């Protein structure tokens, strides 16, 4: 679909492939996003997502084809067994020292992740999906467009260096837009990082901001709840998460504004290097 091609060109710098002949590469996922045929070409047109020849989701309105591609790709990474423990979390890093922000709904994970990346100078590993390699204990980056919802769109659009794609109105998540990951993050896409800090963010509308350390056991339970494949990974996944937390310190923070959140994260990283 043309909108998906534009999306790929804008966010990935990719051009549509000129035929398949002679290609000698290995693709992790064989994905297609197509216009629905028949009456759906004209009447409320739809976009359909395919992995191999299976269609794992119901179609969406055709103007949401590009977000459908992004959501579908996340789904592919979380559901196909690739040997990684997949956790619903944003991950950012300074060099090879990573900070994990597990994703509880409404915690402001993607806004905080964007602030750290565009204002705090952190490198983006992922805004949605932490991929922990059990063998090395490292988190593997896949810096892709950052998902923004509703009010966070205007907030992030004003950050220096942030480039946003088109806005998609009336999706199931409300209005959404995607922001390009910083070029340095993309350049370092092959450099994994070790998790040193885990921060569970909470957005508070009134009262004081706060920060308290959480035990590793409690963090384990909270992160496990946010894992997509811990059960499927069995003992390997269990041990990988234990090992990751062995080397990390975990905090819960409550913040009222972006500045406060950045300040709290800075403080955590300075005090527990």
């Amino acid at each position: 679909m043309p909108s998906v091609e534009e999306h790929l060109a804008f966010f990935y710098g990719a051009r549509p492939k000129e035929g398949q002949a002679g290609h000698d590469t290995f693709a992790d996922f064989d994905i297609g996003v197509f216009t629905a045929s028949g009456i759906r070409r004209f009447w409320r047109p739809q976009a359909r997502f395919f992995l191999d020849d299976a269609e794992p989701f119901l179609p969406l309105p055709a103007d949401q084809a590009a977000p459908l591609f992004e959501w579908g790709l996340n789904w592919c990474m979380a559901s196909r067994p690739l040997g990684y423990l997949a956790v619903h979390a944003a991950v950012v890093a300074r060099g090879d020292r990573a900070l994990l922000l597990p994703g509880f709904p409404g915690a402001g994970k993607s806004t905080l992740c964007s602030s750290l990346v565009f204002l705090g100078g952190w490198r983006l590993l992922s805004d949605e999906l932490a991929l922990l390699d059990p063998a090395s204990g490292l988190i593997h980056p896949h810096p892709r467009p950052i998902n923004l919802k509703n009010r966070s769109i205007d907030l992030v659009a004003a950050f220096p260096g942030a480039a946003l794609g088109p806005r998609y109105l009336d999706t199931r998540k409300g209005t959404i837009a995607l922001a390009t990951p910083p070029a340095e993050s993309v350049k370092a896409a092959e450099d994994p990082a070790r998790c040193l800090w885990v921060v569970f963010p909470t957005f508070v509308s009134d009262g004081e901001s706060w920060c308290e350390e959480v035990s590793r056991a409690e963090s384990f339970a909270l992160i496990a709840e946010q894992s997509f494949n811990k059960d499927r990974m069995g003992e390997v996944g269990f041990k990988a998460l234990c090992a990751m937390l062995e080397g990390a310190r975990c905090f819960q923070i409550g913040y009222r504004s972006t500045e406060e959140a950045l300040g709290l994260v800075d403080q955590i990283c300075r005090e527990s290097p």
Partner: protein
Amino acid sequence: MPPPAADRLIRILQAPHEAARLSLGQWEQLVSVARGGNVVGTLGERLALAGVAVPENVDRHLVGAVQLSQRQRESVRWEAHQLGRALRHLDIPVVLLKGSAYVLGDVPVSRGRLFGDIDILVPRDSLGDVEVAMMAGGWTSAKQNAYDQRYYRQWMHELPPMVNVRRGTVLDIHHTLLPLTSRYHPDPQKLFAASLELPGLAPLRIPSPLDLIIHSITHLFHEGEFHNGLRDLTDIDGLIRHFADSIPDFWSALLARAGELQLSPPLFLGLHFASRLLGTPIPAAVLARAAAAGAPGPVTFRLLDGLLGQALLPMHPDCDSAFTPTARWLLYVRAHWLRMPPHLLAMHLGRKAWMGVFPEVAKDSRPAEPGLP
């Protein structure tokens, strides 16, 4: 001769070293075709065992599948343990079938295999007690529709599948080897009598090696859908290779046992396709004896040979011919034909077609919201 993509997969499963020369594009096709046949874990396991160097980005997919298989085998053991606990007080034999029997019996084909559900066989007169005990143990019926319930209970060889409410695992409870309405009537008592105890897991048992092979073959060749066709044929190949050398006078014993169970016709098909598609080492004299005991007439045989030769290949565009959809549809009808007398079959297919057009509940179980699972 299977299409090149399927042929390469089959050759590499038997001789993993042939993978050493693949280009990245060929690896992509190999993994994708293996996924279509549900043998990607087996492929990973055999490549690793042979020490073949696999490019790193390809290996992620193979290692992931091998790990998933490892985890599923642990789950199957745990599920068996729970099953044993739920059914112990009934004082009946409970025989694990297919995948779960390979795992608990430590048969090499279980390595790398990916599982769907767990199949067990219980005596028919204890079905009611088994169902009650299962419900008390946390399983519930997965089919709530009245027609589906009747379909299973009156005509089939199993209860409607049961799901464990906490673990989500699916259990198929069989009480005969083939549907009640089917044309063959193997006596399940014979399978119970020859079955082997699983130490520490009473009342669970596994079929004797010969029965394990014959049942796996029978199951595959009465199927109407072949999503796992290549996986199941690979199981049969692996079982034969594993047991052929360890059982004295294996081939004669296998043919005789199939005769006792009235299952010579499926055994013939199983041996024929294992040999033809996977190159399972079966002596020509054995194939001839199996044919004499169970081959269909020449016309039926030529037809089945064409249809199954297509349908047992991976479900993948690179393996399909223009004729594949027709072959799959004909085999779907054949499976029902084997299962039911013609008047029931006509009624059942009519009913299914009606429900396809006018579903009682228009329900699509796929998530409406694409995104993370």
